[in-house]
C-alpha cells in the first residue's frame, strides 16, 4: 500500500534528483573555471580588504589539475601511496570517529530529551544549559577534553586520542537531538494523551507507544543535523587536538604545500565533503525503516 502511494512518478523523480545533483556539481565546477578565466589575476581589493580572490594557478588551481593530482603519489618518496587512496584512508578514519561521536551524541541527546519530557522541572533547569553548552567555542574545549581524557583509565581500556575527538564530535551532535527529540516527545495531540490516560497506562507505556513514535518526524531532521555537526566536530577536533590519521590533520599538513604543490591541499577538502555526504546518506538510510512513523506528515 505504501508502494501505491509512492509509485506515481517515483522512478522519474529519483532520476530527476540524480540529474539535478550532477548538474549542481557541474555548475560549481563551471563557476570555478569561469571566475578563474574572467577574474583579475590579483583579485580585487577595496583598500586593505580583498573582496575577490586571486585567480592565479597558485590560489585557484584548475579543477582538472586537482583531479589529476589525486591520481599521483602522495609524495615523491618511493612507495608512497597514491593521493586519492591516502585521502580515502584518512576519510575512513575520520568517518569512524564521527560515527562514534554521532552515536554517543544521539544517545545522550535522547536521554536528555526523555528526562526533560518526563520532568517539567528538568526541562526548565537543563534546557538553558543545553543551549548554553553550544556557545562554548570548540577550540577552547578540545585541549581540555584531551587533558581530562589522558588522565582517565577505564579498567584495562586506555584513553586514546581518537576518543577525545569523538567526545568533542558528540558534544556538537547531542544538541540538535536533545532539542528535536524534546519537541517530538511533546508533539502528541491532547486527544492521544487523553486516550492513553483512559487506558490507564503509565508514563513509560505512553512513551513507548505514543511519544517515541510521534517524535520520529522531528527526530530524523535532528539526526541529520547531528551527523553534520559530528563531521564538523571531528574535523575541527582533529586539528585542535593534533590527532594524526584523519582528514582534519591532513588539511592542516597539506596547507604547507600551498605554494609548492597547489592542487594538493584541495584533496583533503574533497575528502571532508565526501565524508559529509557519506554520513548524510547513512542517516537517510536510517529513515527508510522508520517511514511509517512519518505518515502523520502526509496525512490530511
Amino acid at each position, binding site marked *: *500500500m505504501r508502494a501505491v*502511494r509512492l509509485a506515481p512518478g517515483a522512478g522519474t523523480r529519483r532520476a530527476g534528483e540524480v540529474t539535478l545533483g550532477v548538474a549542481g556539481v557541474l555548475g560549481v565546477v563551471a563557476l570555478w573555471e569561469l571566475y578563474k578565466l574572467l577574474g583579475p589575476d590579483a583579485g580585487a581589493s577595496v583598500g586593505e580588504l580583498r573582496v575577490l580572490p586571486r585567480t592565479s594557478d597558485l590560489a585557484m588551481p584548475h579543477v582538472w589539475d586537482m583531479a589529476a593530482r589525486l591520481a599521483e603519489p602522495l609524495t615523491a618518496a618511493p612507495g608512497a601511496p597514491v593521493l586519492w587512496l591516502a585521502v580515502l584512508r584518512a576519510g575512513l578514519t575520520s568517518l569512524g570517529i564521527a560515527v562514534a561521536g554521532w552515536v554517543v551524541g544521539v544517545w545522550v541527546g535522547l536521554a536528555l530529551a526523555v528526562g526533560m519530557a518526563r520532568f517539567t522541572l528538568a526541562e526548565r533547569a537543563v534546557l538553558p544549559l543545553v543551549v548554553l553548552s553550544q556557545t562554548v567555542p570548540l577550540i577552547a574545549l578540545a585541549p581540555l577534553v584531551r587533558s581530562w581524557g589522558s588522565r582517565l583509565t577505564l579498567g584495562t581500556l586506555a584513553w586514546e586520542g581518537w576518543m577525545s575527538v569523538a567526545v568533542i564530535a558528540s558534544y556538537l551532535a547531542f544538541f540538535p537531538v536533545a532539542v528535536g527529540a524534546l519537541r517530538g516527545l511533546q508533539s502528541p495531540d491532547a486527544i492521544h494523551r*487523553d486516550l492513553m490516560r483512559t487506558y490507564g497506562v503509565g508514563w513509560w507505556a505512553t512513551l513507548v507507544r505514543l511519544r517515541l*513514535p510521534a517524535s520520529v518526524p522531528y527526530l530524523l531532521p535532528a539526526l541529520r543535523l547531528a551527523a553534520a555537526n559530528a563531521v564538523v566536530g571531528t574535523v575541527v577536533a582533529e586539528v585542535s587536538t593534533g590527532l594524526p590519521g584523519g582528514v582534519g590533520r591532513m588539511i592542516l599538513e597539506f596547507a604547507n604545500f600551498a605554494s609548492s604543490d597547489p592542487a594538493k591541499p584541495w584533496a583533503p577538502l574533497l575528502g571532508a565533503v565526501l565524508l559529509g555526504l557519506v554520513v548524510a546518506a547513512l542517516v537517510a538510510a536510517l529513515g527508510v525503516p522508520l517511514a511509517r512513523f512519518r505518515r502523520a506528515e502526509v496525512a490530511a
Partner: protein
Amino acid sequence: MSAPATVPGPVVAHGAAVAVEVHGVSRVFGRDGTAVAALQDVSLTVGAGEFVSLIGPSGCGKSTLLRLVADLDRPTAGSITVFGRSAEQARLAHDYGIAFQQAGLLPWRTVRANVELPLALHGVGRAGRRARADHLLELVGLADFAGHFPDQLSGGMQQRVAIARAIAEEPSLLLMDEPFGALDEMTRERLQVELVRVCAQTRAAVVFVTHSIPEAVFLSDRVVVMSPRPGRITSVVDVGLGAARGDGLREDAAYFDAVRRVREALHGGSDVPSRGVETR
C-alpha cells in the same frame, strides 16, 4: 436480529443496574477572580444498557461532564461513580470505552493495529488480539481495510475504526464526545444506524454528547438537555422509540414528536417558533 433485552424509556427506576451515577457535581475552571462554572450542581443517573445523550449549546458543559465521568478531569465538588466505583477506579479497571470528535487514530499504526492498541496495552496475547480486531472490523464493516493506514481512509471510516477501538474490550459503558460531529450528514446517518446496531449487540450503556437534536433523538432512550452559564441540566426528555431503530424511524410521527419535545426543552419553553432544527 432478535430484540435486545434493553427496555427503552425510564430505565433509571430499575435500581440495581446503574452504570453512571453523577451526584451534585460542579466543575469550576480558573481562580477566584476569573472563575467560570462549567458545571453547577449536576445530578444524573444512567442505567446499565441505557443510551443517554447530552445535548445543549456550546459551553453548557456537556463535554466537561463526559470528561469527568471518564476521569480525564476531576470535579470541583460532588461525586461520580461508575458501576459503583469511583471514576478513577473505573478508568483503571477499563470499565469504559471512549470515542472523541476526532477519530484520534495513531497514524503509524494500521487500522488493525489501532483497534488492537487497548488490547495490546492491557496484555492480551497476539492471537487473541488479532481475532478480536478481525471481529470488530467485521462489525463496523471495515474488514477489507485492516491493513490500511488511517490517512488512507475517509473521515467516516476513521471514525468507525475509532468506534471499533472503543468497544474492543467489551466495555459495559461507552463514552462518546460528538463522535459524528465532523462528518457529513449522510455519513452521519449511516453511522448512527450502525451505532444502534453495535449497541444492541454489546448492550453497553452509552453517554453520547451531541449538539444535533435529530441525532440525539434517533439514538437515545433519554435526552438530557443542558444550558450554559453555569452549565446545568434543565430537563430530561424520555424518547422511548423502541429498540428496533432503522432509517424508517426518521420519518415516523413519534420521532418528529420527540424532536419537537427536545427542541422545546432546549429553547426553555413551549413557545418555540418552528424554525431550523440545528442549534449549533
